[in-house]
């Protein structure tokens, strides 16, 4: 749902429209549209981002650092990293397997399968959390078995990991499927005909071809894994220092009116978001470069 890598056109492209009498609007129309767009952009995107850092640093640098190194905050950071470190690789392997099956082979029910893979994107995060409470909770079918074996899933770390896997499930697959479909299977077939094994073909032909799309899916998956709130909130049980991820920790200290501390932790996640966008822009720039080279070499 986050969209495949888009090749954004360069500045020169927009100028082509602006210099063409058939495709340009009068200056006042142009600047009115830009003005409205930028006002909307500032109100909804720029100011919320700035306010996070402003509020976080409001009580000074020392208070900012203190909010981050507090034991509960550190444990929240650790849990968030743990959940992402488990969820992202699992969904990466799944995404590659799904893309291989869907893009390189024909079988009935393919588009239905793609729809099913997308399903977690359209389910409310709260419902995503609820399903694991229904399965593993105290009153569930599996609940008694887990209690007998002294294992806690819901209101414990495993539940948080499961909910994180669910909400980030489609990210890698979504990026890879269209990319691998577009590349077809000629190169892989050539490789196997020349005697390479399946795994050799996969590692030396397929993976290098999709590496940027793969990275793109992984960073989006990671951003969501570290930032998920609704689903994790349902399964967490909110035990301080134990089952609070960073977003949950933010909620708790915010509800205690420790606003500056809440925004300090929030600013870490905002930095993560900005980093994600920077890497994303870099990948799009690389993909654009590669596409340009291809056009030039075929011309």
């Amino acid at each position, binding site marked *: 749902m*986050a*969209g495949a890598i888009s090749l*954004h*056109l360069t*500045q020169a492209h*927009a100028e*082509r*429209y*602006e210099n063409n009498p*058939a*495709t340009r609007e*009068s200056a006042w129309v142009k600047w009115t*549209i830009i003005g*409205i767009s*930028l006002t909307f*952009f500032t*109100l*909804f*995107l*720029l100011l*919320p*981002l700035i*306010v*996070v850092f402003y509020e976080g640093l409001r009580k000074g640098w020392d208070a900012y650092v203190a909010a981050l190194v507090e034991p509960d905050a550190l444990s929240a950071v650790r849990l968030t990293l743990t959940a992402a470190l488990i969820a992202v690789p699992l969904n990466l392997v*799944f995404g590659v*397997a*799904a893309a291989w*099956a*869907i893009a390189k082979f024909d079988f009935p029910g393919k588009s239905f*399968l793609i*729809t099913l893979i997308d*399903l*977690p994107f*359209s*389910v*409310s*995060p*709260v*419902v995503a959390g*609820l399903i694991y409470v229904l399965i593993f909770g105290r009153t569930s079918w599996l609940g008694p078995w887990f209690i007998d074996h002294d294992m806690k899933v819901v209101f414990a770390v495993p539940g948080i990991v499961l909910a994180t896997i*669910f909400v980030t499930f489609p990210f890698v697959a979504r990026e890879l499927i*269209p990319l691998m479909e577009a590349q077809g*299977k000629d190169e*892989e077939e050539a490789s196997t005909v020349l005697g390479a094994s*399946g795994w050799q073909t996969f590692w030396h032909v397929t993976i290098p071809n999709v590496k940027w799309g793969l990275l793109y899916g992984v960073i*989006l998956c990671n*951003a969501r894994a*570290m*930032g998920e*709130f*609704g689903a994790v909130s*349902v399964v967490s049980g909110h035990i301080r220092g134990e089952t609070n991820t960073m977003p949950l920790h*933010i*909620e708790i200290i915010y509800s205690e009116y420790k606003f500056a501390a809440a*925004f300090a932790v*929030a600013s870490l*996640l905002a930095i993560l*978001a900005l980093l994600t*966008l*920077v890497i994303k822009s870099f990948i799009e720039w690389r993909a654009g470069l590669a596409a340009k080279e291809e056009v030039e070499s075929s011309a």
Partner: protein
Amino acid sequence: MSNRNALPGFNLSLGYTLTWLSLIVLIPLSAVFIKAAELSLEQFWVVVTSPRVVASYKLTFGASLAAAAINAVFGLLLAWSLVRYTFPGKKIVDSLVDLPFALPTAVAGIALTALWAGNGWIGSIVEPLGIKVAFTPLGVLLALVFIGLPFVVRTVQPVLEDLEVEIEEAASSLGANRWQTIRQVIFPTLFPALLTGFALSFARAVGEYGSVIFIAGNIPMVSEITPLMIISKLEQYDYRGATAIATVMLVVSFVLLIAINSLQAWTAKRTGKSK
């Protein structure tokens, strides 16, 4: 299954895909329907039509529709600016459009609340004018506009980029003025993508929780969203009640998913691209 295919790994990859999909998504989701079946039809109906829950549907769907509509208008203008015009800072604007995808919803929630509360940067300007945003349904709308914004921009932008200049030149040389060209040539081509963006934005808004609860104020009958009703049932250990409401939300999600898939197929057909 016929595979006159030289490539190996079909059984392994498809088998793994189906197993993982079933374990993580399909079986857990079916738990909702199985649990909901423990309720009689009457009990189910009482839960999902109780006044407080109905009030939450009205807010959730109403605000989601309004947010998607606002995004359709401003998202289109933003996409148009990004594709057609040069202006300073364009690259930064283009990258930051995806912020709502990358920024955790809880962070967005507290940031929007800080901005629009009575003592916030924007709240302190609009509140003296009699417009209260934070802790009202208007706050819910605002949060939903934030999280839905990239969907419209990112579905319209590529279609706009692919539009052939020649078509506009032809319209112009045939005597159409700029407004006629936009309305009768460009807009019909963009429309399926715009509608898809609208639907994606709406679908995301309906299920949204994190960014909304901080700014909503969560006043019963006034500013409670439906996902919050599920949470509040869970907090009272009313698992069946929570499941009943979740069933309604899941059915809505499925319907929206199918609608969006058909819309995307239509967009692909209209723009002559198979995806």
